């Protein structure tokens, strides 16, 4: 054998490579995958670019409908102005708008203190109040203030928080929970299931009976108990949810491991003298990853829905933190007066679940290409 030949062996195409090629040929799955990546990027990075913080309350803009043009609208200025002047305890004599500023003349029975203008600055509508002119007796004052331009693309919720930033932050939480609980379920399930399937015999019997016992516990009751137990720390709680959802995974993996253990290549490895650890790591686990990946894509939406359900019941994440489930829950309560509060989070949740299911479906076809 020449050195050149040793140096340049042909690179083969692995089964994973094949699966990837088949997945790429599946347009629905690829579109969904791109959508999921986009959703992830938007939810993670988006809140830094949205001008509003998800906790800021704009009391002037409670339940403002979504709009692509900036607030305040022309007819809203007067209402906001009246609110401010009421707090300043002065009467409005006249006001007019000049470009982006308003010029206001007010009167009172007592001399007007300049410091009253703070009320103007504190308002969500006006900013940068300046005294233009004060009458000699101090009972009348003319001042100007800038009108703050605010965008609420998704509208605001029922206490006046920007729904766009809240939806994105909620997406962070929901996706993180889905991944976190999914990963926990996969790790426990794969380790437990493959050990049971690979060891077989009595060990397998005992391990799977334990799973059966856990299965028979009422699930929602169990989760509620854990929530009470872990004091609503959401990371801990969803570790716990993952720790419940691994049961399915363990069963699937055990079945796979049982059949892989009987494959000739495992027997061949045994004949080579490879120990149980080597067989488990080199032969059993790589060959059962296919079904695991598929199941994981189906598990993530399951967890997201579960979280939504718990949040809907009021057992999920706590204010001001939020998740899609929480937003949908409050949106549902305000469906008559502010339907956007339901529509936007619901669209995000549903489209993400759709995409996840399409990807799962595509993966199943790609990894298990039996002619159908």
């Amino acid at each position, binding site marked *: *054998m020449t050195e050149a*030949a*040793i140096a*340049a*062996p*042909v*690179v*083969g*195409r*692995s*089964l*994973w490579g*094949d699966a990837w*090629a*088949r997945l790429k*040929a599946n347009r629905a799955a690829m579109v969904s995958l791109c959508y999921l990546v986009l959703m992830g990027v938007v939810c993670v990075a988006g809140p830094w670019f949205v001008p509003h913080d998800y906790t800021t309350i704009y009391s002037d803009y409670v339940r403002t409908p979504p709009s692509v043009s900036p607030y305040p609208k022309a007819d809203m200025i007067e209402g906001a102005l009246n609110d401010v002047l009421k707090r300043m305890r002065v009467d409005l004599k006249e006001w007019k708008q000049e470009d982006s500023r308003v010029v206001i003349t007010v009167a009172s029975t007592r001399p007007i203190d300049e410091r009253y203008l703070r009320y103007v600055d504190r308002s969500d509508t006006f900013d940068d109040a300046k005294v233009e002119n004060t009458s000699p007796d101090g009972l009348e004052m003319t001042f100007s203030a800038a009108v703050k331009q605010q965008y609420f693309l998704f509208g605001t919720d029922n206490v006046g928080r920007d729904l766009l930033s809240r939806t994105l932050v909620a997406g962070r939480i929901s996706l993180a929970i889905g991944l976190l609980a999914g990963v926990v379920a996969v790790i426990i399930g794969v380790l437990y299931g493959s050990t049971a399937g690979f060891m077989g015999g009595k060990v397998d019997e005992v391990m799977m009976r334990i799973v059966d016992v856990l299965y028979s516990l009422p699930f929602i009751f169990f989760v509620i108990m854990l929530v009470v137990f872990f004091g609503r720390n959401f990371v801990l709680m969803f570790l716990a949810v993952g720790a419940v959802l691994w049961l399915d995974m363990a069963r699937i993996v055990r079945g796979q491991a049982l059949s892989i253990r009987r*494959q*000739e*290549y495992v*027997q*061949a*490895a*045994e*004949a*080579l*003298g*490879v*120990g149980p650890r*080597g067989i488990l790591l*080199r*032969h059993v686990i*790589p*060959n059962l990853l296919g079904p695991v990946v598929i199941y994981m894509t189906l598990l993530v939406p399951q967890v997201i829905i579960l979280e939504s359900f718990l949040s809907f019941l009021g057992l999920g994440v706590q204010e001001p933190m939020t998740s899609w489930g929480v937003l949908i829950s409050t949106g549902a309560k305000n469906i008559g007066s502010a339907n956007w509060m339901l529509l936007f989070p619901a669209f995000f949740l549903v489209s993400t679940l759709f995409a996840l299911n399409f990807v799962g479906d595509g993966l199943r076809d790609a990894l298990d290409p039996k*002619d*159908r």
Partner: protein
Amino acid sequence: MSSRETILDVKDLKVRFRTLDGTVEAVKGINIHVGAGETVAVVGESGSGKSQTMMAAMRLLASNGEASGTVDYRGRNLLALGKSELNTVRGSKISMIFQEPMTSLDPLYTIGNQLMEPMRRHRGLSAAEAHEEALRLLRLVHIPDPERRMKSYPYEMSGGQRQRVMIAMALANDPDILIADEPTTALDVTIQAQILTLLAELQQKFGMAIIFITHDLGIVRRFADRVYVMRSGEVVEEGATEAIFTHPRHDYTKMLLAAEPTGRKEPPPPGAPILLEGRNVEVTFRIGGGFLAGDPMLLHAVDRISIRLKRRQTIGIVGESGSGKSTLGRALLKLLPSEGVIRFDDRDISDADRQTMRPLRRELQLVFQDPFGSLSPRMTVGQVVTEGLLVHEPGLSARQRDQRAVAALHEVGLDPNARNRYPHEFSGGQRQRIAIARAMILKPKVVVLDEPTSALDRSVQKQIVELLRQLQADHGLSYLFISHDLSVVRAMADYIIVMRQGRIVEEGPTEAIFDHPQDAYTQTLMAAAIDSSRFRASA
């Protein structure tokens, strides 16, 4: 033959499959015609497109396949018929039997149900009439005790009986043409002979045409009137059976006819040391039983067998499926728990556990039958071949291992440049070479070869047999060669053990067993095998 009316005429048939790597042309425009009552054989090795030709004609292609050309059955083009019209021909006028009788029957229904259902559906028979008809069919295919068998489930029957049921189902509508796709490949030799006799008898009785798709030239010579030899989607030669066998024109046909493994193995010198010895080896499987299930049934898969393998010797273990030959091989390697004494290299390893066996594993290697199942699909060939080195020579660097892999692949006649490829990218014969390289890289003393050639085409079999002999000569190996194929065993082994139901029925030097079999069972076995290989004498 020209007096026969042509009932099936395949013209310019092409079959294409759309795959990720583009379109693959499996059948490249072939012409086949079949006369009434004629037996036509389509012969070729795996991948020659012989099965796909018939699948296309019956419109049974996989969903990514498409066929073009014409398949004319009594004036109707099957490729252009509508679904309902097609079903009046398919399954009634042209019926098929497949290779795998295990999977062709629905495990959830009794044999009687499966036979009666289509009769009642298609021919409108009453339950009683269908029952009578099903019984008649079962008698026709010589199923013993047909009344009782009507109530049996497929798993209760042997492979041969299942294949008989399949034939009965195919005959239900009195077909014109019976397409038999490797009908005997999955069966033992003695059963094979019975099924073939049955088919011949039925053909005489009903006068239907039979299309035999097979790789086994023995069957062809015995049964077919005419032969089509296929290779990579083309018919390379066609003609009357005798003409093809006596005067093959195409090189490929000649190669197929000469693909019988030849040569004999010389016995080891008389003073050769005994390397692996088993005394009264017994393997018992417990079936069923356990908690609440009562006492298990005991199955003596290997029943007190003694065997002595000398250095440089090859012992052939012959027997039909279920005879315990593979179990014996694994028990001797301590891969299965067994009773009795097993000695290797003057060491008693009867009670050796995993740990004690591990260092010995490199000297005792195993090669499996199925080259598709015995290589892990997620590892590259290089990783597969060097896995043993990880265990037995953990000190080697990755580069050293790579060099050993190159040497091992080179030795078994594979291009070492392909070592980063994955097993599924290789053909059956190449995969078997990889499996052999995996065993040889450890420089073993004893190799148990468990049907290493059964899943391979004849021409490839011959190459593998030659490779194994070469390796034996080069490295002074001892083989335990397990096989049901007597011609391969004859070429490989110098000593033969015939097994049946876990026991040795006869043993002795190869020539003695082949020329003067003493036991009645051995004689049947030899007769069945020689029957199907008779043609080779004249080829």
